[in-house]
């Protein structure tokens, strides 16, 4: 028996329906995904193309993309003005490419775009200064986007169409049981501007849960569901501080374990890294073995689409092996294609 009412949950997230644009996406990329799970980015254009969506990004020498500098901002080495200018430049690139919807693959970029949007809307003087500096420095025009979407919003929006292309569902092949899926949203998606920008609000955010349900899985609610992964920018990056990151991951794992999840799906690149990789450290430090597979929603879509788990989805990059999950769903894979031997 579920200790909660599904209907209640549903009516709660349904109060926060986000108006997600259906087309014209300008993709901006993530530092963390690029460094740790690059396939989760390279699969995005493939999915967009599969769905026939109009999208663009940029790479010409004068219009190359940069990161959003939010790690620098939250890591306290960037004044807000520098971040605003960087973000404004990315927005300008989108306009120049003829795309009106800025679509980042990173949750912190998303949160920062939302914050910049709000600041510029509410502070006319700041808006004037940023517009002037952007023009004087690189001759670009400040255009505040009306609507912002995260790539997961796009997947959410098109989740049913996407499911139409799937070869597999989130169902255990041997028993027909729906897989139990923990969704980890990422604080900067759901907690910063829940009213305006998060599908389903902050408490019962539906952006991943909706994909999971549509794709055959079962949502798992557990006490630390909303808890931060502990990445904390400067906490994960500077070795002496990393104890707090590990403790947060440990706390979440301990809390979800009694609910027996089959996998954790993440929205945020940072969460993906630490929920996956710190499971090893937690194991070494405490002797506890969780090893629950952690994958991004892009990877989840990738494997359900039947794309090659190694060649396209790149699952061998994970610290917690994803193969047991593939076995459960019944996805075949050729271990010879893996880049490395099992340690």
């Amino acid at each position, binding site marked *: 028996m579920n200790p909660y009412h599904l209907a209640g949950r549903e009516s709660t997230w349904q109060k926060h329906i986000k108006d997600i644009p259906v087309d014209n996406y300008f993709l901006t990329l993530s530092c963390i995904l690029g460094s740790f799970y690059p396939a989760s980015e390279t699969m995005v254009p493939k999915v967009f193309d599969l769905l026939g969506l109009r999208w663009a990004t940029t790479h010409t020498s004068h219009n190359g993309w940069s990161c959003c500098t939010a790690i620098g901002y939250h890591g306290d080495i960037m004044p807000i003005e520098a971040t605003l200018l960087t973000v404004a430049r990315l927005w300008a690139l989108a306009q120049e490419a003829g795309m009106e919807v800025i679509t980042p693959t990173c949750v912190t970029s998303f949160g920062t775009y939302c914050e910049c949007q709000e600041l510029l809307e509410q502070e006319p003087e700041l808006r004037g200064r940023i517009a002037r500096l952007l023009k004087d420095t690189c001759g670009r025009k400040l255009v505040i986007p009306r609507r912002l979407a995260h790539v997961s919003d796009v997947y959410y929006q098109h989740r049913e169409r996407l499911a139409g292309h799937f070869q597999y569902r989130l169902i255990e092949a041997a028993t027909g049981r729906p897989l139990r899926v923990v969704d980890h949203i990422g604080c900067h998606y759901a907690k910063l501007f829940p009213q305006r920008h998060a599908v389903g609000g902050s408490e019962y955010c539906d952006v991943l849960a909706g994909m999971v349900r549509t794709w055959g899985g079962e949502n798992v609610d557990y006490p630390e569901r909303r808890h931060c992964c502990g990445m904390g920018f400067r906490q994960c990056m*500077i*070795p*002496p501080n*990393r*104890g*707090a990151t*590990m*403790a947060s991951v*440990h*706390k979440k794992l301990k809390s979800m374990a009694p609910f027996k999840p089959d996998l954790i799906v993440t929205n945020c690149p940072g969460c993906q890294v630490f929920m996956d990789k710190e499971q090893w*450290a*937690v194991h*070494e*430090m*405490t002797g506890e073995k969780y090893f629950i597979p952690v994958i991004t929603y892009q990877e989840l879509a990738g494997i359900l689409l039947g794309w090659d788990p190694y060649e396209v989805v790149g699952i061998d990059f994970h610290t917690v092996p994803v193969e047991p999950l593939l076995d459960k769903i019944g996805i075949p894979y050729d271990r010879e294609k893996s880049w490395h031997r099992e340690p």
Partner: protein
Amino acid sequence: MAASGIDYGWRLQGKTVRLCADRSLMADESAHQMEKALRQMSMEYYVLDRCMQCGICSSACPQGLLHDDAPFSPRNFIQRARLGLLNLSEDELWKCTHCGHCQMMCPYEIPFLEVMISLRNLVVEQGAGHVPVSIRSALASIASGGNPWKADAAQRVAWLQGLDIPPVACEPARKVHLFLGCLAGYDPRARRTAQTAMRLLHLAGVPFEVLADEEVCCGDSVRRVGDLATFARLKQTNKRIMLSKGVHTIYTLSPHCYESIQTLYGWEENQAVRVMPFLKLLFQWMVDGVFALTDAPRGRVTYHDPCFFSKHQGLVDEPRQILKGLPGLEYVEMEHHGRKSLCCGGGGGGFWRDVAKGRRLAEVRLDEALATGADYVATSCPYCLAMLEDASKGDERYAKLEILDIGELVWKGVRP
């Protein structure tokens, strides 16, 4: 940083990296159970329910003036006690020096000191937590030998033999008694104070007798660290001696002995023992002009109020009158004085605790004395005298301060 588990630093090239421990408090069944157990064990505990967490106690607590990362806070302490979150093994339980400032200020008159005694009692007699070694050893010594230093009981009065104070012969009804207390019994410095008191008594022509070596510790600190059983025994012993010797008036040199004997010994109606602090006698002599005074001690003097006189008994004017009556001295007041004076740190078992230099209440007090420009710091409690002197030792800054018992200062000015 609170931490647990193995140190992972060797893997991460950080000095230490540990899984941080969860600091969250628990508001669950276990806390409820502990709180209920506390309630059952100690009736006084109920008074905590009156607390409305206004925090005036914490602002009054002298420990707040210490440079301590986690200064003792009565408010915080009560809150945790009430929620069943108290850790009785922690050092904090022993930080309170029973100065009584908190309960003097409390709008709901919560007897915080009695609560403290009850909780310490849980630890000392019922083993609910850890007793600091120095306190445990003092208690054991008092229980077996009647004094905290494992000294021979006979030593308590043996030192009196060599004094040149001839006994005054008189009828027993005129004779008063002097209760030395443990410090005057065994501590050389306190013995000098006691000796001066005796000389003053002699000079004033008061026939007196020191209670014989049967006298044991008055039990004040014993009670305040929670050893109620030993206190009860000490009380009985002392009462028996006093009654068997036909004591009618007994002067105490320490405010701790005074409070204990006067208010906690439970004298019956027919046991007409009058307990008086020696300070009051001294005051009376000054009022009556018993001594001829010179201007021998010259300079500035300030007075450090012992908590057990000032906050517990309201005895604050008399010592000031005495000092102001000494012709060579200018009286100055410290920032905290009278009923709001600062504790020396010696009460409630604090005398037996080891506190690191730089974290002692007596140091705060000496700084205040220095600020007045005083040459003499007078007090009227052997604990205060010892705590202040200890704190001043080995510190150049305090070298100019002479710390004296008020009787000693008077004696300096008395023309023989």
